[in-house]
């Protein structure tokens, strides 16, 4: 599953950050690393970009960009 497909309010855990170059490095630098828990927090008024909650802060990115991040649904233990 890809990060862009996450539904509003759902959480997941990052499995892998694909893609390459600057965009990929930017994602990693911002804390989207393996094992990180991410939550889809909001969708912009026109449906894109989206707002992701992770590591105690909010990140916005376009759905197309989010597609390089592979996730798997979080077992809702937290």
């Amino acid at each position: 599953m890809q990060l862009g497909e996450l539904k509003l309010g759902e959480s997941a855990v990052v499995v892998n950050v694909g893609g390459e170059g600057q965009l990929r490095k930017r994602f990693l630098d911002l804390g989207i690393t393996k094992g990180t828990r991410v939550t889809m927090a909001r969708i912009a008024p026109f449906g894109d970009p989206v707002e992701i909650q992770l590591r105690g802060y909010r990140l916005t990115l376009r759905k197309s960009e989010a597609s390089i991040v592979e996730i798997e649904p979080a077992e809702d233990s937290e």
Partner: protein
Amino acid sequence: MITAALVGNPNCGKTTVFNKLTGAVQKTGNWPGVTVERKQGFLRGAPKDDILVVDLPGIYSLSPYSPDEVVSRDFLIGDSESRPDVAICIIDASNLERGLYLLTQVADLRIPMVVVLNMMDVAEKIGMRVKADALSEILGCPVVETVGTKGQGTSAIGEAVQSAYEERTVPRTISYGNAIDDCIERLIPIIKETVRDDLLRWVSLKIIEGDSMVMAELDESTAASARSVVEELEQQVSDDGMQIIATARYKAGEAIRDGCVEHTESVDESERISERIDRILLNKYLAWPIFALVMFTVYLVSVQTVGLAISDYINDELVVWVQDHAAEAMDSAGVDTVVADMMLTGVIGGVGAVIGFIPLIALLFAFLVFLEECGYMVRVAYMLDRVFTYFGLSGKAIIPAVIGIGCSVPAIMGTRVIEDESNRNVSIICTSFMPCSAKLPIITLIVGAFFGASALVITSLYLFGIVMILISGLFLKKFRGFIGRPSPFVMELPVYHMPTVRNVMFGVKEKSWSFIKNAGTIILLSAVLIWALSSFTFTGEYLGDSATTDSILSAIGKALCWIFVPLGFGGSETWELTVASFTGIAAKENLLATLAVLLDSAVGIDGLPTMEVLTEYLSVTAYPEAVAMSFLIFNLICAPCIASIAAIYRELHSHRKLLLALLYQCATAYGVAGIFYQGYVLLHGEVGLGVLWLILFIAVPVYVILSKRPFGFITGGKEEVQE
């Protein structure tokens, strides 16, 4: 002297702390070769040695991708002789993990370090207690707790820097787990010959990451053997170097965090104030009306009411007062009438008109800096991104456009928020399409005279600016050098913060300064030049107070006005409009002043033409309102003032690109004004040769926008046209 580099994530409060540390005396400039701002200043009340604080740009990492990051890493690495003595690493205590991620990278550079835990108040509010002494213990360097906005704790930073410098408190080596640490051990002997001793660990990590800049500096055989070591690691953990390192650094950061944070109570994410504000401001239905309301309020206060009142006072009272007294003084001193006229009309009148704008500009910037600092501006970009991507631009393009309502110069500088070069180029060229405050009097006058001062028409002119930027996105992207996808929109949405008065004042000062500098130089010069051109004939005969149709300026205008025939204001009976448009290039404020001089009739007390004069003047044309509007449109879009042109040049770094930019602006202005005028004429049932112009003006852009193949001109940049 101790040189201390200030490093931190964007929005961690770096500017606030920097302002607190250095006070009002700061030096702003650019880093050599790149358009990244460099600020530095001496620490006030340094305990012993002088401490020079250099403010590095806000960054998340020391990667080689953005100019901000490259500037920061180059400065921190330095060379064996000049390296900063201390790194002050500012961390947002409420956002520890990301701050610590950057901190681990700075720590690897082996510079004495001081950690500043800022936003302690925010951390407390969300139920976190960060123990500075525990953090200091883990890292092995001084840690200072601060609340930047209140100035709490900042005075201790000087002491900490001094002691870090004297005791060389380089942070402890941070472990990234056995696999990586072993790999570093194996890499060090390979690179030992070629790399500075203090950088061995950092370079090793960068090699694992596959950092292009570091790899490029290794010779071939070293690089090859280093790479084979890294490949072993990659196989062992079955992942690639870049991801391995980022993951490990965040893990190390988490470990440090766990060692120094106590959770006092858990405050639910969704109950934070910032989230509650966003639920309204970013609400699907309310976001737009609120944005419109915010912009309207800014406009109303700074331009229409308060700002206007102060400006009027300066123009009508102060400048006139100065003029009267100067006239008297020169009269009694027996100054030559030509010189006196130059001083009064040219110098005092010209510069006075600009100074009158300063309160308006300052107020406008106060609002804009506030919106930016509190965190709303990023959210506007977020809201609008979807619309902008449709035109091949990023939502970030709205930020310079909004600043452009104040003045194009800082707006053009503000395009630096857009990372991708081709996207940024579009914004640099089109930002001046927004009606800046200097264009406002022209708008008010023309809309007042011909459209009953309709607020709707005025507002549409601002929307028109945005629409022109968007269309330019589609158009310019068909040319090499501008081709590219909308730059990525991966950004932090910072929590809302109440900006301090001090920060806003600093911002206003910084941004208004370029405007004031222009008043003193370019506008002064051009005012004198225009005065001279309109007061003398070609034979050097002085025409006296009121310029007549014999002046040099008039001759030029009459010779060139045919250019504007397709736009409706090129007739020989309206040559004054041609001259005014030309003088507008020096400064848009000149435009009306020139018109006033040329129309040589009753002018308003502010030295600008009155609506009656304008209406009467244009009554000789067939469609006065269309002529006026076409003139207005042309001047809103065409090449901006000299100051903005200089700013465009600074950002584009190339004469050739600058020339093309100006050409594009003028051609667009010409085309759009032409479409308006000829369209208007056609709609009024007059079918003539003008229709050919109309077809041409519409066909060219449509052809370019629909074209599948890119056009030449500028080399460089990516080659294919995006889908």
